[in-house]
């Protein structure tokens, strides 16, 4: 962990809940880590493991996926699939000896601005501790 390390975190946020939750956090003037770059997706179930791998291998220090609480999905079951995809993603990376601490899946609803702030800050702290993504400095991807 070097001096002056500013992590870059990619956040895939569900349009119907977490994105609105992040918006609410902003409106409530809660502090959100500046290191979080948000990508709005129509459902957390849309987050293909390929997108996460792309982010990680191109140098993101962490990837946050946030979606609706179980049972609250706008498309009824997208977040359940997201959870399975996330489990698959984690397991695959784990068996290849890659860090899965840089990944996070969280449920945040549209009314949970406070919770969004907490989740984002906690994850940013975790990434701060882990330091820069070693894959960033590896030339052959």
């Amino acid at each position, binding site marked *: 962990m070097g001096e002056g390390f500013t992590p870059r975190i990619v956040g895939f946020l569900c349009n119907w809940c977490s994105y609105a939750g992040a918006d609410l956090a902003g409106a409530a003037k809660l502090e959100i880590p500046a290191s979080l770059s948000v990508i709005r997706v129509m459902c957390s179930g849309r987050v293909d493991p390929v997108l996460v791998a792309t982010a990680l291998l191109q140098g993101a220090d962490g990837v946050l996926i946030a979606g609706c609480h179980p049972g609250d999905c706008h498309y009824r079951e997208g977040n359940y*699939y997201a*959870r*399975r995809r996330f489990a*698959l993603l984690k397991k695959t990376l784990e068996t290849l*000896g890659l860090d899965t601490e840089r990944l*996070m899946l969280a449920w945040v609803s549209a009314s949970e601005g406070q919770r969004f702030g907490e989740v984002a800050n*906690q994850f940013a702290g975790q990434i701060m501790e882990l330091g820069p993504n070693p894959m960033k400095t590896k030339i052959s*991807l």
Partner: protein
Amino acid sequence: MAKVLKLNKGAEQCLLELLRFLLERGKVKGVFTFSKVGESGGVAYSLITDPAALEAALPLFPLMPVDAAKVLSRLTLVEPAAEPIAAVVRPCELRALTELIKRSQGSLDNLLLISSTCGGVYPLETGVNGNIGEKLPGYWEAVKKGEIAADIRPACAACEHFVPYNADITLALIGNKDLDKQCLIQLNTDKAEQFTDGLAGELSQGEAKSEVVDSLRAKRQARKQELLDEFGVEDSDIQKVFEKCIVCRNCNKVCPVCYCKVCFFDSGGDEHDQRYYETEMGKKGYAPVLPAPTFYQLVRLFHVSISCIGCGLCGDVCPVNIPLWAVALKTGGAVQNAFDYLPGRDLDEGLPVTTFKPEEFAATVD
């Protein structure tokens, strides 16, 4: 217990007789099996409709130039086979076909699936070197005794699913000491009984499972562990494993469960414009330029690991000898265990990525 038909002939002859019977009686329109190609010792899957053409058929030839699942999926993709076809496939090919059908890539209707307890196949290299003939006697000897034949594909030596799961007809080869003289045809389904009705043979009850089969399974499980240790993928460093990869994508083309018509890597989804590289160079002092081996291999594993049936074709065709089959076995095994899923076991078992339970994987969510 299933019905077992005993024929007093060698295994290959017995299978040919069964196929000839099916064709001559008009029970099937065609037979899908290995045939000799030319004189150089090559074999390829073909559809045979003329009983006389069965002369060139080699249904039990221990080589896998292509996965039958891929071919059968193409033959039944748009609609099921119009008329009955008898297909002779290996247990892993059958599992791959099941996985493809779960993804709507084919149909089992009108297919009579004939498989066998499998002794494995030789690496393609052995096939093209032309010395596979010398190895055959040893191979059949090993099958009779229920041992791992020498020099077979490492993935086969490590395969524990060599008893077919969904076959209509199973030939009991492993542990049959009189393989040259007699053959046991196990009829697993009503369909199999209807199709073989009228075939001369001694009928009894039995099961392809036996002590020899169990002991071979144990031997292969032990070999699997040895091989995973040997190839060092147990505590793998992804960079080290894939650093030799040249992204020729052979593994992608031969994989039976890698089925997309337009692959992500053909879609341009992984490409960047010129400006991206310039920016990256400015930021990092270097810019990774495509093809990116680790990314390619990772994405491949995301896509196929859940359905990997461990056939080993990927490792077989790798020009830089990456033990891809071992990576697939390890990652595939871990992912499948996480979902308590065995690919190709049951057509009604839903794919883990298209099914879910409301209460599960609580620990993966923060």
